[in-house]
């Protein structure tokens, strides 16, 4: 009898919890986890306070195929969690109607620390970023107006926008803010490297040697802890005459920016292949070969790469060992970032 009463009480509590969650209450604040020793985030949270409701709405939008013109593609189609939110093993992203983009989808991680987005840094605010793939004819190919129209007809979205923002209005601004709330939470800071830095783990010898070589030869551009200094650099990657992508120059109109691209973060680099702005490097070995041998050096090539980047076979081996320590499985398997209702099966569990 007592246990029945206990169960009854528990049910009451759960029912109250549910009522509290759904009934016009204030959204529950969330906090961005800022890893120890990291710089302050760049994203302006005062204009878009993080809340549980906003995050959940953003996550639903991120996995929403109805945002594309033929309802086949979502953000997550090209930004796959198991690939650190890059496109696994695809050099160029696929759009609707058998189209291809001209660039490799970058990993989405630690975006709260970035101020400019895309390989050429053309987009100056995270809230605006999703509008580019949404409207590009070789990506999701939809108009903002039509995408919003679809969301407004979906009662789940009407409810979730209301829970996140206080009323049922669904507009461009709120869509951008909700997506940002999901995107900024994609923090990757729990790799073996991070654990070593925190004193919770130690490198194997090749990893430790590789870390030393990395700091000496790679770290000035791929700067810790983000593993990018967020600058744009010409690394001697020659123009592909089918893509004709001049990178940063397209944004600034400045010839000196020709073939400059944003320095990508190396976090989770072991699984974000292929590499380069157009995915032309299929493996890390290709990248190392590029830097030590294949670079096309011009006066516009980055000043610190004017003599290419000499790397011995030994150094390449140790560097590879170190770069593998940047894989963050906590991030790759975090169910919080998975599609609503989806449970990631941990593949590392040994089953008989």
């Amino acid at each position: 009898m007592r246990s029945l009463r206990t169960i009854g009480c528990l049910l009451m509590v759960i029912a109250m919890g549910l009522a509290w969650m759904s009934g016009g209450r204030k959204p529950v604040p969330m906090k961005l986890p800022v890893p120890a020793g990291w710089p302050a985030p760049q994203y302006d949270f005062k204009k878009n306070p993080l809340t549980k409701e906003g995050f959940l709405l953003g996550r639903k939008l991120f996995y929403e195929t109805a945002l594309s013109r033929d309802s086949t593609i979502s953000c997550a189609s090209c930004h796959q969690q198991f690939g650190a939110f890059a496109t696994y093993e695809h050099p160029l992203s696929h759009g609707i109607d058998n189209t291809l983009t001209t660039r490799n989808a970058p990993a989405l991680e630690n975006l709260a620390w970035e101020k400019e987005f895309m390989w050429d840094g053309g987009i100056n605010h995270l809230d605006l970023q999703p509008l580019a793939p949404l409207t590009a004819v070789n990506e999701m190919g939809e108009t903002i107006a039509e995408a919003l129209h679809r969301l407004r007809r979906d009662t789940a979205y009407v409810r979730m926008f209301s829970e996140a923002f206080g009323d049922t209005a669904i507009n461009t601004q709120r869509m951008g803010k909700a997506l940002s709330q999901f995107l900024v939470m994609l923090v990757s800071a729990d790799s073996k490297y991070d654990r070593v830095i925190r004193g919770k783990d130690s490198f194997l010898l090749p990893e430790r040697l590789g870390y030393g070589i990395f700091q000496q030869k790679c770290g000035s551009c791929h700067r810790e802890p983000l593993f990018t200094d967020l600058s744009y650099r010409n690394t001697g990657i020659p123009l592909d005459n089918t893509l004709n992508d001049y990178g940063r120059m397209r944004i600034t109109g400045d010839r000196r920016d020709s073939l400059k691209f944003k320095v990508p973060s190396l976090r989770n680099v072991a699984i974000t292949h292929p590499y380069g702005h157009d995915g032309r490097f299929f493996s890390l070995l290709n990248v190392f070969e590029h830097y030590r041998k294949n670079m096309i050096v011009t006066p516009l090539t980055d000043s610190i790469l004017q003599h290419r980047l000499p790397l011995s076979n030994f150094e390449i081996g140790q560097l590879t060992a170190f770069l593998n320590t940047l894989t963050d499985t906590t991030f790759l398997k975090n169910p919080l970032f998975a599609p609503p209702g989806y449970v990631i099966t941990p593949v590392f569990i040994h089953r008989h």
Partner: protein
Amino acid sequence: MGEGEGARGGGEVRNGEREVHGSGHDRDGGREEEVLLKEAHLVDEGDSSSLVLHLSTDLADIRRISFVVGVDSLANTGGVQGGDLDPMLGMFWTWNTGYVYARLEGESDSAHSPAHRFTWDIGGYKDPSNALRTVTLDVGAGGGSTSGGVQGRGADGKKEICITADVLKWFDGKSPVHLVRTPICHQPGALAMRIADNYSTMFSVTP
């Protein structure tokens, strides 16, 4: 607002369309001035309701009007804006963040672009490609008169100031820009600024 019927340089403008973002304030002749409109207003030639602005003022005697054609850098860098600045309205570059301040599109035999379509999208908020332009117009002496002058009274007794835009000024308001050579303008830069200089001369107060 004027609609293009012909372009200099042997070309012809058909189906001209123009849209202007402007936020403005009216100025009295020296003693006082007042900001009459704080938000951006999108003028869309295809939407007649956007061609009339209803503003209230305490100024009795309006002699000058000033407005900005374009969107200030704050709105260009502050994320997704609402109202007439909603990127949904299409006056926005998603891939290279920034507002399109003014757009003129159409067809001309002079334009050797695909299908002879010319598209001039003008914008840019960063130096040295800033295409923001401030326009100041004299409303003229006799302002405030109830009949005859430029500030006539409409049927509802409100003052009306009619501003006309001569679309041909896009081509030669300050310096000639030819469709033959530059039928496409889709990004901030020297061409966009030249066209902005040109169209900033296109406004006049019509008696």
